[in-house]
């Protein structure tokens, strides 16, 4: 099927930067403000789904060769492993730590192990959401 979707393609190419930038902002601001791995992951997933919608699954799968089940699984694995950092020092599971680091340009910055946990959550959300939408949308029989 060949259809004229120039507007959709052009718009997607622009919008995708906005969506991903906003997703990353949501993801990073999660520690003190509304946001976090879950919502950031959902935003990224919506961007990827927009890709699939406008360019079709064949073209996207070729340029983005990801098995989304594996993305989700590694995300959960990362999150669980981060939770185990606490075990090493004898604290309860999921205890997180905060470090103050002086990044030269950005000034003093808080870096937490919770960020790593959130990365896992984000990956899990991206993987599951995209995989669910792809599974429902394609007829594999």
């Amino acid at each position: 099927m060949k259809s004229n979707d120039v507007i959709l393609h052009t718009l997607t190419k622009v919008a995708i930067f906005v969506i991903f930038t906003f997703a990353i902002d949501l993801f990073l601001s999660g520690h003190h403000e509304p946001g976090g791995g879950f919502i950031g992951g959902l935003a990224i997933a919506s961007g990827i789904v927009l890709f699939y919608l406008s360019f079709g699954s064949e073209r996207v799968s070729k340029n983005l060769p990801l098995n989304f089940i594996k993305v989700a699984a590694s995300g959960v694995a990362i999150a669980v492993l981060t939770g185990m950092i606490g075990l090493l020092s004898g604290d309860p599971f999921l205890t997180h730590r905060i470090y103050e680091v002086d990044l030269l340009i950005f000034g003093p910055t808080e870096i937490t192990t919770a960020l790593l946990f959130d990365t896992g959550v984000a990956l899990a959300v991206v993987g599951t959401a995209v995989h669910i939408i792809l599974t429902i949308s394609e007829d594999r029989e």
Partner: protein
Amino acid sequence: MEILVAILIGILVAIGTYLLLSKEMLRIILGISLFSHAANLLIITMGGLKTGSPPLLSEEGSTFTDALPQALILTAIVINFAVTALVLVLSYRTYKKNRTDNMEKLRGNEHE
């Protein structure tokens, strides 16, 4: 406000029950989906519907909104999302394999 939402929950549960009792698979799925929405609404209502106060007790403010129900329904919604997706795929496969979406015909017989 709570009373209004309570009535809304009642309506959702009523529609959900009606749909659950029908025979088509898709209607049943919509029914369980509405049912879970009613459950989520109930949780957030039970935490108290207040406006204008932050979820944390600070030095100035004396009232606060309970943040826990929000965390609970976030989890419940995610689980519900995953389960609904699974049920949709499962029902589609069942339909393909059994050639019917009528639960009445999916009772199964003794000799097969």
